[in-house]
């Protein structure tokens, strides 16, 4: 199996398009970091306008932890589109080139090949996420330093002590890996249905954009549908950054406000991954390779 995965990884990383995603993420993060380094004080003053009416905030608000949170909010919506570039090409790309027929004449079963391709695409996805984590978190910590995480949400502010932040990012990135693997598996499923790459790539992107819009609109009609959309659950990495308070309104260090929400989202995303990959295997096993 490992040899099949190595073959697939070689194919992925020998294509120039693979590196587009790494380059795009690096460019976006560097531009945002540069902007915040030069003009971050004006940005934080704007964010804290309401708070400054009542309170004086003393400390390094715009630190590496906050920068990483801002970057993740911006990028975790768009990274799925970059994941689709590779995942949705895994089977259809070979079908288009005519190499899928050759692949399936080898002694290895179709199921093995499909699983090997999915695992290779997943490794690419995880590497992309690690690259994102390295640039967004560690480079931001290096450039901006660290302090407490002063998180301004729409209706309230969460102040997380700096020694209580890093594990939350680890949790958020692990959660994000499940979210991105769901996108990988969706792209993979659509890839198994097509004989050219463009259709599944555009199709995956369209599904993500469409579902994301439905997930983010606060219209009662869509509220009913929201819990069933995987894009709604993909966004719940933010739950790692909301903490519980006791009866005296003191934040409880090391706590997470809504653990069940995270668990449910992880289960939903995992089920999506299993469903999409299983469907891909069934489709490929029954497929006539005509190209």
């Amino acid at each position, binding site marked *: 199996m490992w040899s099949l995965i190595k073959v697939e990884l070689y194919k992925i990383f020998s294509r120039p398009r693979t590196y587009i995603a790494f380059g795009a993420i690096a460019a976006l993060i560097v531009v945002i970091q540069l902007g915040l380094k030069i003009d971050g004080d004006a940005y934080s003053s704007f964010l804290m306008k309401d708070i400054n009416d009542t309170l004086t*905030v003393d400390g390094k608000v715009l630190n590496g932890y906050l920068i990483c949170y801002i970057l993740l909010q911006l990028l975790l919506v768009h990274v799925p589109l970059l994941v689709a570039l590779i995942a949705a090409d895994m089977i259809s790309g070979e079908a288009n080139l005519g190499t899928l027929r050759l692949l399936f004449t080898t002694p290895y079963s179709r199921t093995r090949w499909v699983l090997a391709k999915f695992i290779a695409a997943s490794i690419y996805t995880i590497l992309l996420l690690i690259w994102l984590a390295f640039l967004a978190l560690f480079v931001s910590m290096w450039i901006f330093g660290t302090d*407490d995480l002063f998180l301004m949400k729409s209706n309230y502010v969460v102040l997380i002590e700096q020694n209580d932040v890093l594990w939350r990012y680890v949790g958020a990135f692990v959660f994000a890996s499940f979210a991105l693997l769901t996108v990988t598996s969706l792209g993979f499923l659509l890839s198994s249905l097509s004989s050219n790459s463009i259709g599944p790539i555009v199709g995956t992107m369209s599904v993500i954009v469409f579902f994301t819009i439905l997930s983010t609109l606060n219209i009662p009609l869509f509220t009913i549908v929201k819990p069933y959309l995987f894009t709604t659950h993909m966004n719940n990495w933010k739950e790692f950054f909301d903490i519980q308070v006791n009866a005296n309104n003191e934040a409880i260090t090391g706590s997470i406000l809504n653990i069940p929400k995270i668990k449910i989202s992880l289960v939903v995303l995992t089920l999506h991954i299993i469903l999409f990959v299983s469907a891909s295997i069934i489709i490929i096993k029954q497929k006539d390779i005509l190209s």
Partner: protein
Amino acid sequence: MKNINSFLSASTILFLSLLFSLRASAQVDPLIEKVAQKLALVNDYVAEGSMKTDVSFIKASLGKVKVYFKKPDLLKVKKEGGISLLPRGGVSLTINTLLNTKGYTSIPVGTQLLNEKKLTVIKLIPNDDNLDWVISTLWIDPVEALVYKTATTTKENGSYEITMQYGAYAQQGLASKIIFSFNTKDYKLPNGITLEFGDEDPASKQKMLKNKKGTIEITYNKYTINKGIPNNIF
């Protein structure tokens, strides 16, 4: 003619006595003097303690703080290794900073029971128009010469109430616990800025958080008094 002279004399005496009584009332109350004398023993201090922030729209844990004070009115609260939230302008209006300005008129307004203590209530009005505060009411224990509560209205930063409890440092007029109470304004950031699209029921959360009073409690464990503090701390 004699009647007119008598009337003028009586009017002059009445006017002079009124002027005298007004001038007398503009003097600093002896109790305030007693409190100020007690506070005068402290030129500067560094106090270590813990701070609790209780504002409806803020989730924050207890934090260790250091409070620096230097005569006449320099005060700084610093959280050790973290971000601190303090009421805007309110923290600097402690009893030390109020009484050390000297430029005020005190008006005794009676006595009140506060936590089963009979306290003298005195209002302070600043003589200096440039001071930030407009009026301050002090609840003072006349026996111990300790201020247990102040309510201060400022020009720009609203009203504050500061409640004090005393312990080991009562002799120097330094509190063991201070509670700042202040009115909080509504907090709301558009979802477009926070990128929190699709949150459930934001309206009810917002309703819950409105019109609340905020408090910041500082409990002091240790004071280091009159050891000198460099000005760059403030």
